[in-house]
């Protein structure tokens, strides 16, 4: 109940953040402009709109999680409202989880808006332009929803990272660290290839350790496959979900423990 109250308050606070609206506006503009880019190709309009739309949702979603998430706890400290909160019978894990779920609600609402805009653009494009294109084979909304589902999971993981850094570091550094984790998460897959190709047992094991410990955000990226109607097995999606949930659980435990040790004077 306390978690829910903190989450709702966090959500109300987050949606007043101007950064959120700027990023949301940017996403909408990019999705709408993808129609223009699509027109520059031959018969690939819908694919380009889907590609750019999903990429924009992922990228701007991460930016929202980072910029809004890293400021949340710091704002409480800055405005000294944290003293009021921790003096009440609220346990610290309730505070952290409340903040986390509040931010997730914000991101979720944003993604719904982005999804609606993307689907609206695709439908308008279909009615006005695509039906005149020879060989046009429909919009295919369901695969897009699968891809968006994993984008949400990716953002849940990044949000947990953003909150962890917002507790242990300053807002500016937290932004850098969170975006750093996002970048590492997308290139960690190369570590395995480098380890395999190195020919050295030491480098192989070193790369393997980092590969399994660092977040692998490619597990949540099935955007290209879904847009091109390529089959991705349910077991892949299942293990990606398990991976994401367990990884963010560990990060949240570390966040709660860090916040528990933090002293406010």
């Amino acid at each position: 109940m306390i978690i829910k109250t903190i989450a709702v308050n966090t959500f109300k606070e987050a949606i007043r953040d101007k950064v959120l609206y700027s990023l949301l506006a940017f996403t909408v503009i990019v999705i709408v402009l993808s129609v223009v880019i699509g027109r520059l190709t031959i018969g690939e309009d819908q694919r380009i709109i889907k590609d750019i739309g999903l990429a924009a949702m992922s990228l701007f979603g991460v930016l929202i999680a980072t910029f809004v998430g890293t400021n949340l706890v710091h704002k409480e400290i800055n405005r000294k409202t944290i003293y009021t909160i921790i003096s009440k019978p609220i346990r610290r894990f309730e505070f952290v989880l409340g903040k986390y779920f509040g931010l997730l609600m914000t991101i979720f609402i944003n993604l719904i808006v982005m999804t609606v805009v993307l689907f609206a653009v695709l439908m308008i494009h279909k009615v006005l332009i695509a039906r005149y294109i020879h060989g046009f084979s429909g919009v295919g909304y369901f695969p897009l929803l699968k891809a968006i589902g994993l984008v949400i999971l990716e953002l849940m993981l990044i949000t947990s990272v953003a909150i962890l850094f917002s507790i242990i570091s300053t807002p500016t550094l937290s932004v850098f660290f969170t975006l750093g984790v996002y970048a590492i998460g997308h290139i960690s897959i190369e570590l395995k290839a480098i380890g395999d190709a190195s020919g050295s047992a030491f480098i192989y094991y070193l790369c393997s350790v980092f590969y399994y410990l660092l977040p692998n955000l490619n597990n949540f990226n099935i955007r290209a496959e879904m847009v091109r109607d390529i089959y991705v097995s349910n077991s892949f999606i299942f293990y990606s979900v398990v991976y994401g949930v367990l990884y963010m659980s560990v990060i949240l435990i570390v966040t709660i423990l860090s916040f528990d040790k933090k002293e406010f004077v």
Partner: protein
Amino acid sequence: MYSQKKFWIIISMICILSITGVIYSQLKIDQIRLPRKRLEEKIIYIPTGRFMKAASIGFHAVLSDLLWTRAVLYFGEHFTTDREYPWLYRILDAVTTMDPHNILAYRFGGNLLALEGNRIEESIALLKKGIKHNPDKDWRLYFLLGFNYYYILNDHLTAAYYFEQAVKLPGHPEYLPKLVARMYAKADKEDVAIEFLEEIYTQYNDEQVKQTIMDRLILLKAKEQAKEIQKLVERYKQIYNEYPENFEALVNKGLINRIPEYPGGYFTLNPEDGTVDWFSENTPNWP
């Protein structure tokens, strides 16, 4: 005190179990991803180098280096599996557009696309691009281009032009002019090609690249050996007025010491018309 200890034990257990779960899920994902990766390669859109250069906002050299690493890994991955390289040219083209002075990328692609990938047009396009951007940097670019024209395309005139350009540049091996002269003298094609490949072999340290060149060298030497055996078959015909049934007949009559063989392939003898042929498992369709 007791409850705090219990708390930490529970938290540690949860963390250990979660991390184990994370690693287990990643292992399962990797197992599933293997067939998925093949799909990815077919669908991945590698933008043109020009687009990537513009999009890299000044970091094209770094992007080129990263993509160059990707190209080498791509080659290694396919070398140990299907030995098909449909994307190699596209990746190297992007690498060299972002960094037109990456000589090694031209040489790597020029060599492997022709020798390993059977993609002679792409090999020639890449080498010509390298020469265009680096006309007097490396004699090897002309040398490889000349080799492609000489041995694979049988265009001796164009090959001679490129070999002469290679000879004009510093650093070329001393014997190269002699080799070019031999080529002009219409020496045995395989014989000259073996010398060319032996030179290319010395230019690399990478084991996989060396093995690719070695496979071709073995094949060329097998072709040479087949010609020698063919002469002996003809001699057998002259003496016994018929072609030998098999290679054992040549051994029995003392024309050769043992049944001819070479690594990764075998010779065949047609007793009807006495034709000696060869088959290679490593390089079935080259050149």
